[in-house]
């Protein structure tokens, strides 16, 4: 290993960083064994201890390589590359178990103590000043490891948020053709300015495409109708009217109805409590009433 060569060249007078790198390579096995008993590894690798030891070896190797590069405080060091995925998995596993970022950080920090203990025990001949310098270097290196773990877990979290935001946009708003000349949009979730803009655009396009006479806005899936939501609804209604179609707002639940009244909102639009009622209204206005088949005629044949 290159660290060994470096250490060998400076065997008489190694720098603390070289000493720590050499120590990490030399005592890799003991360090991994000690780490396997720490809470972090015990909690993450529950299947077998061998797995935990293997993970410990990988991290010790990575740290040795970072020390070998001479930049113990560089979180972007290429030495960390092989273990980044493993560290992210470890942090994610602890986060799923309900630990806060600070708690995970403390668990990673707990790995430092056995490593420093082993280092001190490994240098019986060295001067106390050299031991102290080596311990400081190793502490800095473990601090860098801690930062790398935090960084990878934050990156993971951000990636998750990005994926979910894209997903949310996809959920947006299908415009459904219910009948000839009747389209409906089931609105779901929060109707903020950006989403109501998307709703209005897709609805207006489909009013043209479907040559719709009626557009039904169903708000069953909108949990809160406040004045801004109402304002967005009314703007959509006005735009649909300008296209020559008529709007019906459906899915107004009793609690929402009472709230709208108290809020003082006036909805100058045809409203219905259910989508079925709204469809029946639109069909009636189109002259296509739904009628019951004469009694006895509708039985199964």
């Amino acid at each position: 290993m290159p660290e060994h060569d470096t250490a060998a060249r400076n065997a008489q007078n190694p720098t603390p960083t070289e000493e720590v790198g050499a120590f990490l390579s030399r005592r890799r096995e003991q360090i991994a064994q000690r780490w396997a008993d720490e809470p972090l590894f015990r909690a993450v690798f529950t299947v077998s201890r061998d797995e935990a030891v293997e993970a410990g070896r990988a991290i010790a190797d990575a740290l040795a390589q970072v020390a070998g590069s001479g930049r113990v405080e560089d979180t972007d060091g290429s030495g960390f590359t092989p273990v980044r995925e493993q560290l992210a998995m470890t942090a994610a596993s602890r986060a799923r178990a309900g630990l806060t970022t600070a708690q995970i950080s403390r668990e990673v920090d707990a790995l430092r103590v056995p490593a420093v203990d082993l280092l001190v025990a490994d240098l019986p001949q060295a001067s106390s000043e050299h031991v102290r310098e080596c311990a400081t270097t190793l502490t800095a290196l473990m601090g860098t490891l801690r930062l790398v773990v935090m960084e990878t877990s934050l990156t993971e979290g951000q990636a998750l948020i990005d994926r979910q935001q894209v997903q949310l946009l996809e959920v947006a708003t299908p415009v459904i053709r219910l009948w000839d000349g009747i389209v409906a949009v089931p609105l779901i979730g929060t109707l903020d300015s950006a989403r109501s803009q998307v709703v209005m655009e897709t609805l207006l396009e489909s009013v043209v495409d479907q040559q719709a006479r009626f557009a039904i806005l169903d708000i069953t899936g909108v949990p809160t109708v406040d004045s801004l939501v109402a304002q967005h609804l009314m703007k959509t209604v006005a735009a649909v009217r300008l296209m020559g179609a008529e709007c019906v707002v459906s899915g107004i639940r009793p609690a929402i109805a009472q709230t709208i009244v108290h809020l003082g909102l006036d909805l100058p639009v045809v409203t219905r409590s259910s989508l079925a009622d709204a469809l029946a209204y639109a069909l009636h206005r189109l002259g296509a009433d739904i009628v019951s088949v004469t009694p006895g005629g509708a039985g199964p044949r």
Partner: protein
Amino acid sequence: MSGTAAGVDARLPIRSDLDLVWVRQHVRQAAAAVGFGLVEQTKLVTAASELARNTLVYGGGGEVATERVQDGRGTHGLRLTFTDRGPGIPDLEQALSDGYTSGDGLGLGLGGARRLVHEFAIDSAPGSGTTVTVTSWADRPPRPREELR
């Protein structure tokens, strides 16, 4: 952010549209935990939505504190305090009247929120920010009309 998602006593920041979603969800959960019926929940959440948006849009951001309260007869309620350090409201009477807005909204937020809750208090002066405190009680009829100014 202190407090937990399901906690009743909590302090939530209001700095973005996403925070408004969080405030609504939190108030809904807290109101359900205190024992509000569906209608009272919806009314309080809607009032919270209006006031939180005011805090964001006109106050330039701030925070809301939610707290469980109890009156002398043992009725549980929920008190929400919205605080911002924005420009303040020069004319409270005008701000509370329906249809008045200094922005481009419908002008129903403040007055509407007052009608949606049982108790409403507003403290504001130009330059010193705005604090709105609202309280609703479980199992209590809406306050009579004549109490409204």
